[in-house]
C-alpha cells in the first residue's frame, strides 16, 4: 500500500493506492554467442553491466539465497557462479560435460543438472561444490523441473521423448511419460496440479497430471500464415495462480498466451526472432523473453498482455533469470 496526502486547508486528502509502486529488479540474460551475461535493471529497462563468462552460456538461475547467479557454460564443461554483489564470476561447479539446463531443490542445497552426453541427471551439492550422485535417464536429458513439494524431480529426454519422474528421496525413476518429439522444458503449476512439457519438434505442450503421471491434454498452436514446422515451443512461464501460461515459440517469433484452465491459446504476442526462454519479474508484472536471432529481450506487460519494450543485449541471448535486487 502506498499513500500520498495533500493538505487542503484543514482537510487532508489522501490517495490510497492498491498496489506497490513499481520496484526495480535485476534480470540476468545469458548470451550464447557473446560469452557474456547482460544485467538488466527492470526499472530503467536498460543493460547496466555486461559480465564476461565462460564459453557458450545457456541455462541460468539465481540461487535461492540470492547470492549467486548460476550459469551453465557448456563449452567449458562447467557451471559458473556469478557473485550478485560483485557481479563477477566467483566460483565454478563440477557439472560434468556440456551442461545446459539445471534446477535447484527448494532449499537451494542440491542442484540437478541434465548431463546430455552421458544420459544422466547429475546431483551437485552447491555449498560443497561437489558432485554427489547421478540418476540414469533417457537419451539427451534436457528440461528440468522440481515439484512444488520438492518430492519429485522431472527431467525430459530429447531423443527418448519422455518426462522422467524421479523421487528426490530415493533418486530413482518412479514413472516415465511419453510426450511429443524433442521435449525441451518442463514447468509445474505452483499448486502441483499440472506439469507442462514443451516439445520443440512435436510443436505442442503436453499437460501432465503429476498424480496420475499421464498426459491429460495437449496445448496446440496455430498461427495464420505460418507453417506448422515453424512453431517450436521451448521456454515457458506459468503465473503463480496457475491461470495464465506463456510459451515461447522459437522461430515462430511469438510468445503464446495460454489459458491455464482451458489450455487454449488466447493470444499470440509478436516478439523478436527465435524466442527461446522466459522469466517473470518477482512481482509478476512483467515477463522477459529472450530473442536469440534479434539479439534482444522483449518485455511483456503481463496484465495488459502487450510487448512494451525491447532491450538490446549480447549475441544469441538464450536464458533469463530474475533476482530481487
Amino acid at each position: 500500500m502506498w499513500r500520498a496526502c495533500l493538505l487542503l486547508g484543514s482537510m487532508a486528502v489522501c490517495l490510497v493506492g492498491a498496489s506497490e509502486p513499481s520496484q526495480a529488479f535485476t534480470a540476468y540474460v545469458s548470451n550464447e554467442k557473446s560469452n557474456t551475461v547482460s544485467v538488466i535493471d527492470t526499472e530503467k529497462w536498460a543493460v547496466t553491466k555486461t559480465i564476461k563468462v565462460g564459453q557458450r552460456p545457456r541455462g541460468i538461475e539465481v540461487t535461492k539465497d540470492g547470492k549467486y547467479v548460476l550459469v551453465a557454460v557448456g563449452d567449458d564443461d562447467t557451471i559458473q557462479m556469478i557473485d550478485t554483489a560483485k557481479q563477477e564470476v566467483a566460483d565454478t561447479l563440477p557439472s560434468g560435460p556440456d551442461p545446459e539446463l539445471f534446477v535447484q531443490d527448494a532449499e537451494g542445497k542440491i542442484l540437478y543438472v541434465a548431463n546430455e552426453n552421458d544420459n544422466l541427471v547429475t546431483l551437485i551439492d552447491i555449498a560443497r561444490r561437489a558432485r554427489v550422485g547421478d540418476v540414469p535417464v533417457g537419451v539427451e536429458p534436457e528440461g528440468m523441473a522440481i515439484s512444488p513439494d520438492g518430492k519429485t524431480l522431472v527431467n525430459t529426454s530429447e531423443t527418448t521423448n519422455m518426462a522422467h519422474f524421479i523421487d528426490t528421496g530415493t533418486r530413482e525413476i518412479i514413472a516415465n511419460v511419453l510426450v511429443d518429439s524433442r521435449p525441451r522444458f518442463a514447468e509445474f503449476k505452483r499448486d502441483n496440479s499440472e506439469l507442462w512439457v514443451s516439445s520443440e519438434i512435436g510443436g505442442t505442450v503436453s499437460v501432465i497430471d503429476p498424480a496420475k503421471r499421464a498426459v491429460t491434454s495437449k496445448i496446440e498452436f496455430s498461427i495464420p500464415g505460418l507453417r506448422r514446422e515453424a512453431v517450436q515451443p521451448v521456454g515457458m512461464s506459468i503465473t503463480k495462480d496457475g491461470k495464465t501460461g506463456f510459451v515461447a515459440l522459437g522461430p515462430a517469433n511469438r510468445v503464446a498466451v495460454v489459458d491455464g484452465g482451458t489450455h487454449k491459446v488466447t493470444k499470440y504476442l509478436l516478439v523478436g526472432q527465435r524466442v527461446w526462454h522466459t522469466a517473470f519479474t518477482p512481482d509478476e508484472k512483467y515477463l522477459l523473453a529472450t530473442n536469440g536471432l534479434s539479439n534482444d529481450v522483449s518485455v511483456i506487460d503481463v496484465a495488459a498482455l502487450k510487448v512494451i519494450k525491447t532491450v538490446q543485449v549480447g549475441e544469441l541471448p538464450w536464458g533469463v533469470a530474475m533476482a530481487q535486487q
Partner: protein
Amino acid sequence: MKAFALGAMAFCIFASTCLAAEPVEIKLAYIGPAKLPSTLSLVDQPADDDGLAGARLAIQDNNTTGAFLDQRFTLEEVRLKDGADAAAAASALADGGVSFILTDLSADDTLRAADAVRQRSAVILNVGARDDRLREEDCRANVIHVAPTRSMLADGLAQYLAWKRWKRWLLVVGSHPADRLYADALRRAATRFGAKIVAERVFEDRGGARRTDSGVTLIQRQMPVLTQDAPEYDVLVAADESETFGAYLPYRTWDPRPVAGSAGLVPKSWDAAHDQWGAIQLQNRFVKLNSRRMTELDMQAWTAARMVGEAAARTHSGDPGKVSDYMRSPDFSLAAFKGQSLTLRDWNLQLRQPILLADGRMVVSVSPQEGFLHQTSELDTLGVDRPETRCKLK
C-alpha cells in the same frame, strides 16, 4: 512394486544382467557391401563400418528408451561380397524373424531384397541408394527411403545457387552411369530454379589409379584443359558420384570459379561439421562410441533405426505390422537434428528432410532456402513432388 520394477529397468541400461520382465524384442538388420568404394581424397575414405556405426548408435539410443518401455532392439549385420545374392540374404534375415532391414545396396539389389521379403511382410529401409527410380517407376510398398534422392540433393544445391544468383553453370559430368543420373538431376534442378547450364563437359574415366606418387603435377595440367574455353559462367557444377575427378576441380579450373556438386560445395544429408539444432549431442555420442566422425551414410542408418524405435515407442508395440503402419501414418515424425521434424511422403515413402550444403570444413547453408514456398511442406520443394510422381505404391 511398479516403482521398483521401473527403477530396476533403469539400472539395466548399465548392467549386463537384468532381473526385470522379459522385454519385447524388435529385430533389425543391416545389409551393406563388403567392399567399400574408393575416393579421390584419403580424408573421404569411408571406414569399414561406415553406415553400420550409425545403426549401432541408434540401436543403443533405442535401447535406452526401450529400457523404460520393456522393449529391446537388436541388430544383425550382413556384408555382401560383389555379386552376392541380395535376395537370398534378405530372405534369410526375414526367415530369422527380422522385420526391419536397413540396406546400403545398389538400386537393383535394393529391389531384389525388397521383392524377396515382400511375402514375409518385412520392411526395407533404404539408407544407401539415392536413385530416383526407386521412389518413382520402381517404387515398392515395402520400401521406406531414408537416403535423399539425387533430385533432392540437386534441388537443395540449386536453391542455394539461385539465392546467391550464381545462375550460369558449367556442368562437368563423369562417364559412369551414376554420374549421368546425378547430371540428370542437376539439369532438372537448373530448370526448376532458373539456372542456365551454359555448357557441358564430360570427364572420360579411362580407369587410371586414384593413388599415384606424382599425380598432382599431371592433374594440375589436366583440369585447366578440361575447363578452358567455356562460355561465361558463375559456378562449375560437377556430377561425379564415381569419385574419378570431382575433387580435382577446386583451384584448378581455367577460370577462377567456385565448384559445387560432387566437390566444393556438396549437398548432403549430414556432415561431420553439422552442429546446429542440438546436433552436437549426436556428434559427441557418435565420436565417443566410434572414435571417428559421423558421415552421411552413418546418419541415414541412424535415422532409419531411430524411425523403427520411435514408431515402436509410440505404438507401445513390438508387432512389426503395427510399427510399420505407424511409420506410414500421418502421425509419424522424427526429430533428427535438422531443425524440424522429418516425415514420410505418403505417395512414395521417401523421408522429407532438409539438405545440408557443406564445403568439407563447415556447413555453409541448409536448404530449403528462404523464399522457396510450398503449399504443404517447404521440404517438398526438394525432389519429385506429389503431382509429378510416377509412383503407384503396390
